[in-house]
């Protein structure tokens, strides 16, 4: 029974750390499927986390915090869009630039406004997301097996957590069952086909990039308004890159993304759990190895050992009308 409770605890923290990955990887899904590669997920998430923390601290409203996060993230996306769609610049350079600018400016602005060493003030309960408790969660808590699963694993998460998991089938539906999705996938494969069909490639790609911004906004808000009570400098700590790895690992497919994010989240949760707890026979597992595992798995995938990851064909290439 002790072991069972440990498992439930690890799975529960798996869900907790997977949420920002799912938001960010779905964000990447929309833009990359439209042919705009985005290495700036990290920066957008960080900018959104800061905006959420700052605005929630000032207004005391969690909703305003979330809206500010989405707004900032969308603006950063539009910068990326302008550089890589309109000006046909390098998508990698633009993404990296956004990551650097955000990493620096959040600290500078945070210090200038709040004078707490780049943090935003700690938030009251009202200015944060609250956890949702399912009906009867307390009542069934002590029922064996079902109890812990229902009241610890399924119940008791933030509303954004449920949103993230519902967004997975929703994203699939948008991409595969709507006209917008069909065109979005087409523009990532052969923008020429979209252009000659009389649809604007540029507008379509901008819309994809805006979708990405909105989802990154959720990811950032989750970090500073749900997981923590305020913004801390560099609080994304590479989650944007892990999300990117998950996106590739998932071969740019929504349900695979959820599984990849849960896997990477599980590794993270396990790493935290194993800290200072040597495993039988194996001994102490270095935390760094666990943290590197998502990247190692992705590299192994890209090397072609686990099936083949074929990126959208027109990905990374600005569209220029031929001749």
């Amino acid at each position: 029974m002790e072991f069972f409770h440990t498992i439930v605890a690890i799975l529960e923290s798996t869900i907790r750390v997977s949420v920002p990955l799912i938001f960010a990887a779905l964000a990447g899904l929309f833009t990359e499927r439209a042919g705009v590669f985005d290495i700036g997920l990290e920066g957008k998430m960080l900018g959104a986390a800061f905006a959420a923390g700052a605005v929630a601290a000032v207004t005391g409203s969690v909703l305003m915090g979330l809206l500010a996060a989405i707004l900032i993230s969308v603006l950063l996306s539009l910068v990326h869009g302008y550089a890589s769609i309109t000006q046909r610049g390098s998508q990698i350079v633009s993404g990296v630039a956004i990551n650097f600018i955000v990493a620096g400016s959040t600290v500078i602005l945070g210090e200038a406004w709040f004078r707490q060493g780049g943090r935003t003030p700690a938030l009251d309960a009202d200015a944060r997301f609250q956890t949702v408790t399912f009906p009867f969660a307390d009542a069934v808590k002590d029922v064996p097996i079902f109890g812990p699963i229902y009241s610890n694993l399924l119940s008791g998460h933030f509303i954004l957590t449920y949103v993230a998991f519902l967004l997975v089938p929703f994203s699939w539906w948008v991409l595969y069952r709507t006209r917008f999705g069909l065109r979005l996938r087409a523009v990532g494969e052969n923008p020429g086909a979209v252009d000659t069909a009389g649809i604007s490639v540029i507008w379509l790609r901008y819309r994809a990039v805006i979708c990405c911004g909105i989802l990154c906004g959720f990811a950032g808000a989750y970090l500073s308004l749900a997981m923590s009570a305020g913004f801390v400098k560099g609080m994304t700590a590479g989650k944007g890159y892990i999300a990117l790895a998950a996106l590739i690992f998932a071969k740019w497919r929504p349900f695979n993304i959820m599984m990849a994010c849960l896997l990477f989240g599980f590794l993270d949760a396990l790493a935290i759990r194993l800290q200072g707890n040597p495993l039988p026979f194996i001994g102490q597992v270095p935390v760094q190895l666990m943290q590197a595992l998502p990247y190692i798995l992705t590299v192994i995938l890209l090397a072609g050992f686990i099936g083949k990851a074929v990126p959208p064909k027109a990905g990374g290439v600005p569209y220029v009308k031929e001749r």
Partner: protein
Amino acid sequence: MSDIAIELRGIDKSFGLVHANKDINLTVRKGTIHGIIGENGAGKSTLMSILYGFYQADSGDILVGGNKVTIKDPNAAISSGIGMVHQHFMLVENFTVLENVMLGAEDSQILNTSISKARVELKRLEKEYALEVNPDALIEELPVGLQQRVEILKALYRKADILILDEPTGVLTPPEADHLFRILGQLKDQGKTIIFITHKLREIMAITDEVSVMRRGEMVATRKTKDTSVEELAELMVGRRVLLRVDKGEANPGAVKLAVENLTVRDSRGVTMVDNVSFNLRAGEIVGIAGVAGNGQSELLEAISGIRRAVSGTVLLNGKPIDVTGHADPGDLRNRGLAHVPEDRHHVGLVLKFDEAENGILGYHNDKRYLNGVFLDTKAIQVDAEEKIKKYDIRPPNPRLKTANFSGGNQQKIVLAREMERGPDVLIIGQPTRGVDVGAIEFIHKRIIEMRDQGKAVLLVSVELDEIRALSDRIIVMFAGRVVGERDPDATEGELGLLMAGVEGRKEAAE
């Protein structure tokens, strides 16, 4: 008036200093196949792009069915009833036929209803025009001929009455091209108007009713096809008389210069592209390798010239082996008398940002005569470039000009001059006249024959069957990586066409 489908009046278009279309007038009659012929860069594609709304004309009017229209984007063209089949198919390869056909013409936000409607409409079109294709097949799994059919269906689905086909036969085998012509004839019978763009005279004569000739951005003539001839059209295209046939004497083959035995090559995906190929190439003969693009010819050339590593097999150059399965060094092969004119001059043959003189010594830049100690002897390079410019009539005659600024034909001459002037024993040429105008083709063909007559061994790969037949002393046909037959140059086109399509070859291999 009602029998006119499209009328262009005074269309003018410039890109910077390039005057692509000068005061073009064109009248296309309803229910006819109207050919537009001209050399590369004559402005055909620009004109059609204006008609399809990719570009806007600087001045001039477009009339569709007698009414003046403004075509500001492809959408406007589609709603005026104009459809286009592009030279490079505008299809999404991992989508199904149905998804491609309805892309951009879906009739609701949610796909399900659009899909079922599109399926019904596609069935109707298939029946009406006898254009069968499986609506649920993925594009990437279809042969090129069927992909083109999907492009045609796409246009018909959008209710196009006027179909523009831009160089539609470039990627097709001869039987596939014949099939396309039958489809076009049938579309014409059902009242559609077809504008057929090509640089191949034979196709114009075969299927068009009328033909308009473009030269250097101008519309120089329009003729009824039955009242004109190949010779007249060629002259109109080039602006002077051209010899369409290549005059060449009997070949005088000597010793074997290049011996290829059981060569097998795989591409980067691991697919076998050259499958156990063997042949000999003798001094004083031209061996042509015919085949539809993508049947292993490119990989064969790359393996022989040391650019791509072969899996197995041997190649002897002047009786001595080339390390084709190991580290064959293209520079070393050059010194041993093998010259290579690559298929893709932009990516392999030239550095477009270098000037003409620099490209003229590329690969031979370690040669003593271009060096002054460890430095390049710029004066010698300049003199060398000027000689070649003169001998090969490279225009403009400016060795300092960036290579990107030369026309396709002149770029090709730069590569040919570099490789031929070294007097190699073996000359390997891929697509010698791809994207080259008729005038330059004549010159290039003459030079290739001259090389042969000087006793050089020439291996020629081309997807232009006419070119292979005109130049070669022996023709080897490749299909799916294998040699499926060897023929004399007087073999009929039909016979070669069947071999290229893999029809005859299978029978022959089975026997």
